[in-house]
């Protein structure tokens, strides 16, 4: 019944947009996903990432654009025909069916022989390590176990593409780490192409081969986790990727980059694009060092103990907040001197 087979080369989104009334929730997203790839759609809440996922799933119609699986156009078919697996944020397990029947649902829909269903469900149960819970109802399982059932149910039909909509957001912190490893393990074992929606940059960085950052329904950057982490393409992405220090500044050419003034101090930075004199400087708190001869002087306002280090907010003479990490103890009221390596001072056009 499913028109999509597992042996596809690529899934192409060609300029897909989605309007809700007058509001354009998703604007002109173009993306090619290779077979076996793990792509994360990352963005703050309300950025359109779930809309994008639902468009790919077929649960929402695209307003403009096309979706292709190799030579086959998908955007006019219903979700039943696309044959993609989906893991929902609230798991959406059928509450009246046992774990076994939940997992076997897709195979039963395909009218597979009973013996084959039993065998493949057994395999899926083993994969997610839920053999002893096979005859329970979803309501009798913990959140993490429900999550595993949802994953097993999505992958047992061997879909060409697995879609995951913030699957770990309902779990507590410890379980989230465990399930993250689990998602990674299953992906490595089965090699299924996956699109994973999340607002958690750490999740995206640790899981994905490539990350697409969506902000306000628009693609802002696409790249490997390293590229996004070290070289965000614009200040919006930088802010989302944890560059807490975003300072408006003026720039002038200098040796090894551009010279910018941050809090009255001169820093050498790396231009990320062609920049004029008006610039935005982005520095990650981790890249700020407390050193005796640092050019920036600021007074510590708040210092949080984070175990391995301190996370602190300091304020300079003009009242600009600076966020930094320090391995030595810093106390509110103390004056610190801060420095940042030129390669980690990113300069964008304002």
């Amino acid at each position: 019944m499913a028109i999509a087979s597992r042996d596809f080369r690529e899934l192409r989104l060609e300029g897909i947009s989605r309007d809700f009334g007058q509001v354009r929730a998703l604007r002109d997203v173009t993306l090619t996903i290779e077979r076996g790839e793990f792509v994360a759609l990352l963005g703050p809440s309300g950025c359109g990432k779930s809309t994008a996922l639902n468009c790919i799933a077929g649960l929402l119609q695209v307003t403009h654009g096309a979706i292709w699986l190799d030579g086959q156009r998908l955007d006019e078919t219903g979700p039943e025909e696309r044959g993609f697996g989906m893991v929902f944020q609230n798991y959406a397990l059928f509450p009246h069916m046992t774990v076994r029947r939940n997992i076997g649902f897709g195979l039963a829909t395909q009218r597979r022989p009973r013996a084959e269903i039993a065998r493949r469900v057994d395999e899926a149960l083993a994969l997610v390590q839920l053999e002893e819970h096979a005859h329970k109802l979803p309501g009798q399982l913990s959140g993490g176990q429900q999550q595993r059932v949802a994953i097993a149910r999505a992958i047992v039909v061997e879909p060409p593409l697995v879609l995951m909509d913030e699957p770990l957001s309902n779990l507590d912190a410890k379980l989230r780490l465990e399930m993250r490893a689990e998602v990674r393990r299953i992906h490595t074992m089965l090699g299924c192409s996956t699109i994973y929606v999340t607002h958690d940059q750490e999740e995206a960085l640790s899981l994905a081969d490539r990350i697409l950052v969506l902000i306000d329904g628009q693609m802002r950057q696409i790249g490997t986790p390293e590229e996004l982490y070290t070289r965000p393409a614009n200040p919006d992405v930088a802010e989302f990727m944890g560059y807490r220090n975003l300072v408006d500044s003026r720039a002038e050419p200098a040796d090894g980059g551009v010279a910018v003034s941050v809090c009255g101090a001169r820093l050498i930075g790396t231009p990320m694009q062609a920049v004029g004199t008006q610039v935005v400087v982005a520095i990650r708190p981790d890249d700020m060092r407390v050193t005796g001869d640092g050019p920036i002087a600021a007074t510590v306002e708040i210092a949080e103990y984070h175990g391995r280090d301190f996370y602190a907010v300091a304020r300079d003479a003009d009242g600009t907040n600076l966020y930094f990490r320090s391995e030595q103890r810093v106390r509110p009221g103390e004056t610190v001197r801060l420095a940042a390596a030129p390669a980690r001072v990113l300069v964008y056009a304002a």
Partner: protein
Amino acid sequence: MSAARLSLRRRLREHGLDAVTLLVIPGVLFVLALFIYPFLYGLVLSFHPKEGDALANYRRFFSDPFLYDTIYITLQIAVPVTLLNVVLSVPVALRVRLMKHQRLLTTILVIPITLGTVMVAEGLLTYLGPRGWLNRSLLEIGLSEPVRLTHNYWGVMLSLVISGFPFTFLLTLSYVTGIDPALEQAGAMLGARARERFRRILLPLLAPGLAITLALAFVQAFTVFPSAILLGAPAGPTRVISIVAYQAAFEQYDYPLASAIAMLMAGVQVVIIAALLGARTLVFRGPASTGKG
């Protein structure tokens, strides 16, 4: 002394009894005075017939086809009406759930409830009668004889659908909206088409609610009285059981017999409801969505 009082109060609270519990008293008194007492009074009265032994009324009912046939006649109206109302409600509720102007449509559908049976009956008599709009329109387009829809089985049936449907619809809608839409989406993602999603996901989750809806709708239809008289043929095909009880009480002034008939009415309803709710225990009764763990 005061320590002992405190601990008594605390112990009562442990069992869920506190000052708020007192607010239940007016309700309990009301039920006792207006339901339990009359019911028991009627039950006792039914065993004190005007003549004969304690069971004479019941024996009389079951020996006179003119009386016992009314059970069958009433069921013949109530069962199809109940099924029809519930069967119609499900697809409408499934559709309305997805609508934007749900409230407007719900309001329109609820209007028949506010009109009352007599008003609906009057309206139907005019509209469906031999000289009503419907028949005149049908004659215009070439029907040779007017369709008889009043003063017979169909008149009662139609009026019960009109007054019963909003009720079953509202109940069904509340059960339908209780089902997480993501479940249907999950079914679709797993390749199930609309019909299969309905059969394997929605219907099993709706079944317990539908059993309750059926039970309530049945009670409503089984106790039909005004429309059976106004729109039906109360001497023949729509001589329902409540008419017989009414005649016994207010035409023959035989209160014990009327009470016995009322008790039998209640008995039939209890049997049907027990069967429905018994069937309900056979299906899944948990929540219609799985929450976070």
